């Protein structure tokens, strides 16, 4: 009906509402005993407030028209009627404006604090305005005497109050959107409580028992049923029960029954009844609102708990909470699945060590002690044992759970099965290994045969033939270099780079490299001055350091035609820096960083120079970084030469220690694949 009303065009809605108001007003005036225009039971107030609250204050003309028609057809002049209608309209308008502004609008029944304001605005303030307007209109136009002002005012006020407190909540609660609970047990319970309330009301107010006419305060016997409504059902049922009780009580009192039918007049009896009903209604509605609020708080807490639970259960990782003695106190579904058990109860209460492989126990204890210090440990791998004894590798992340004071109460561990990742890593390794094998084998054959041809193993090679054969041999060398570099790049990019760090004086590597380059140095007529302090010990992978130095010095040789190449070193903090300076072609600023990207070479100046793969500096830098150092251009000027630098951690420094720790972590997480992986599938 609410939806239907809201869709009506405003004039039709006004017509419809004023008609309802008119009918309700006429019924109300039947109970006008103290004055033909003043009734102690005035339902239209509730209808007016509820209508403007639900459908909008713009419908106020409906109230005015309704009130006007009720009174114009009653006794009194046009002026009186206009005054009363204005009062009635103002009443609803003021009540709704205040409720909307201060009492949460149409949800004013949901919280005790809003309901309290509703009673204050709609029940007390606005109704007083209407009563004042009405009674003044009657008195000023001579339809009532000034001596009667007070009783008339209070009767009017109380009558409107009843309408506001009992009828408005009824309408608001029914037309405010809320789904009905149609569960059979619920409906039966409502039916039962309403039946009991109906019977008890009849007994108390309907004169069906002598008890209703005795001098007893039996009116309080309805309380349990109203409380039942407030605690078990919603405000809608509670408001309905109050309305039902109110109607029976009015009917009984009018017929001279019940505890309130002892007044000096019918009006006095109704006055007492209204006072009782209004107090009861406010109390019970307040209670209902408190119950609703409590229920909503519980529901929202439950929802939040459910959401959290769903989140935890849908996690692809196992989540395990344990106390400080490693007894498991909570797990999610994934944890249960991971160890192939049936339900959380199979895990709860057990010691977490029961699921960790024996060989990892010592390390686990060490990590627990460490966790107490660092609060959080991530990326630690353990072997987890399933119910059937099978095992898998899990990567874990553990945090301390603290209470409000910050004292540790337990440990939360997120466990991820990394079997698949391990398998992928193994496959990456295998790919690189197989690719190395398959690419290098034919190239070795080409290179080998070429060298045998050139050595005259297959007969004398005449001069015209020798030249192209030498070219092929050089191209083959380049191809081998390229394949080696590409394999290095793929190791770097798949994070399968393996470093074997050791501590050694620079001498052991630098001297070898310089010696191996001697023939080229000699050929190029370039001087090489080696001023490196070779007694300083560094921490590096000697083989990789050799590759970097070969690359840097090789590049210097490649791009220098006259002058010299100088190698020198400098200690800087925790690092040892090796400089390779040349007097070669130099590199423009734009090209300096570009050189460290893959397949980048300074092409314009390369005419006539031996081609490289364009990967050397990229690989050198990545190798250096993996060892805790770097490779960079210190200075370079076109036509004047370049200086490249390589930094490495000095042995015994904090930096060296950190790099080693990092590498150990990576290595322990990586599987080693040896040559056997490259076995031919066919045999």
């Amino acid at each position, binding site marked *: 009906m609410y939806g239907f009303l809201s869709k009506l065009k405003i004039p039709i809605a006004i017509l419809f509402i004023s008609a309802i108001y008119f009918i309700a007003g006429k019924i109300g005036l039947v109970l006008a005993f103290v004055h033909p225009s003043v009734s102690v039971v005035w339902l239209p107030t509730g209808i007016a407030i509820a209508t403007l609250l639900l459908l909008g204050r713009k419908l106020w003309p409906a109230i005015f028209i309704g009130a006007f028609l009720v009174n114009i057809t009653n006794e009194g002049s046009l002026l009186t009627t206009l005054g009363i209608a204005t009062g009635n309209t103002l009443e609803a308008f003021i009540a709704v404006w205040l409720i909307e502004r201060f009492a949460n609008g149409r949800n004013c029944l949901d919280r005790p604090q809003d309901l309290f304001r509703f009673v204050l605005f709609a029940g007390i303030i606005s109704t007083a305005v209407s009563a004042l307007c009405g009674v003044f209109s009657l008195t000023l136009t001579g339809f009532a005497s000034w001596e009667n002002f007070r009783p008339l005012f209070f009767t009017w006020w109380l009558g409107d109050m009843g309408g506001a407190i009992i009828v408005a909540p009824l309408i608001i609660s029914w037309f405010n959107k809320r789904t009905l609970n149609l569960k059979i047990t619920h409906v039966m319970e409502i039916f039962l409580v309403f039946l009991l309330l109906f019977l008890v009301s009849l007994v108390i107010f309907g004169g069906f028992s002598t008890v209703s006419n005795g001098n007893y305060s039996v009116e309080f016997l309805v309380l349990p049923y109203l409380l039942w409504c407030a605690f078990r059902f919603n405000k809608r049922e509670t408001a309905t029960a109050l309305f039902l009780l109110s109607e029976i009580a009015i009917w009984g009192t009018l017929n001279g029954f019940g505890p309130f039918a002892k007044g000096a007049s019918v009006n006095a009896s109704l006055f007492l009844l209204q006072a009782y009903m209004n107090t009861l209604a406010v109390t019970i509605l307040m209670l209902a609102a408190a119950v609703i609020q409590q229920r909503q708080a519980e529901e929202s807490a439950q929802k939040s708990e459910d959401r959290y639970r769903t989140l935890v259960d849908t996690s692809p990782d196992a989540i395990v909470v344990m106390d400080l003695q490693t007894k498991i106190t909570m797990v999610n579904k994934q944890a249960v699945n991971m160890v192939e058990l049936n339900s959380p109860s199979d895990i709860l209460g057990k010691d977490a060590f029961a699921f960790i492989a024996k060989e990892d126990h010592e390390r686990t204890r060490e990590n627990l002690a460490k966790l107490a210090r660092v609060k959080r440990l991530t990326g630690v791998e353990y072997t987890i044992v399933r119910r059937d004894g099978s095992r898998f590798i899990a990567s874990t992340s553990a945090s301390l759970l603290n209470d409000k004071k910050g004292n540790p109460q337990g440990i939360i561990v997120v466990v991820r099965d990394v079997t698949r990742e391990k398998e992928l890593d193994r496959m990456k390794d295998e790919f690189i290994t197989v690719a190395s094998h398959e690419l290098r084998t034919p190239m070795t054959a080409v290179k080998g045969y070429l060298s045998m041809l050139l050595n005259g193993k297959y007969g004398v090679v005449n001069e015209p033939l020798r030249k192209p054969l030498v070219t092929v041999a050089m191209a083959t060398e380049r191809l081998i270099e390229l394949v080696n570099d590409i394999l290095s790049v793929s190791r770097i990019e798949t994070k399968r780079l393996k470093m074997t760090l050791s501590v050694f004086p620079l001498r052991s590597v630098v001297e070898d490299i310089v010696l191996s380059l001697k023939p080229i140095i000699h050929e190029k007529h370039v001087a090489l001055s080696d001023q490196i302090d070779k007694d300083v010990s560094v921490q590096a992978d000697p083989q990789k350091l050799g590759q970097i130095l070969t690359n840097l010095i090789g590049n210097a040789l490649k791009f220098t035609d006259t002058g010299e190449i100088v190698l020198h070193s400098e200690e800087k903090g925790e690092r040892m820096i090796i400089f390779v300076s040349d007097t070669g072609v130099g590199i423009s600023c734009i090209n300096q960083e570009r050189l460290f990207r893959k397949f980048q070479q300074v092409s314009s100046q390369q005419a006539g120079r031996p081609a490289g793969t364009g990967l050397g500096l990229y690989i050198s830098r990545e190798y250096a970084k993996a060892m805790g150092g770097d490779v960079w251009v210190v200075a370079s000027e076109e036509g004047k030469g370049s200086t490249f630098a390589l930094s490495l951690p000095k042995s015994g420094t904090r930096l060296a220690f950190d790099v080693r720790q990092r590498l150990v972590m990576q290595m322990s997480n990586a599987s080693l694949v040896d*040559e056997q992986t*490259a076995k031919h599938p066919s045999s």
Partner: protein
Amino acid sequence: MNSILLVEDDLTLAIMYQDQLQLDGFDVSLAHDGEEGLQKAISKKPSLILLDIAMPKMDGMSMLTELRKDAWGQNVPVIILTIMDPNERMLQQVMELKPAYYLFKANSTPQDVSDKIKEVLSLSENPQPAS
């Protein structure tokens, strides 16, 4: 004449090394996998074994491990000829099996290989007095 057993599964490479060695005057016999290699080594007792690592059926490491258990095999000079980058663990295993040389195919020409063989054989024929 010095006899060489070449254990190499790649036929192209096997013929290449065989060519070089035969031209250098060695008596070369071929085996295509570790199993055949082990069998021929025990039966033919060559002066030196040139051994590949990655091979079907039985790889070079396993063959060498088995060979070193044999009374004759424990002292025969072996040159490992591999295409792979070594890793630390593998190098350790290899060293325990006492190869005379560990050569990378891509870095060594057939002539280099032949030179190493000559060097090893001249050493094993005229062992240097321990110092």
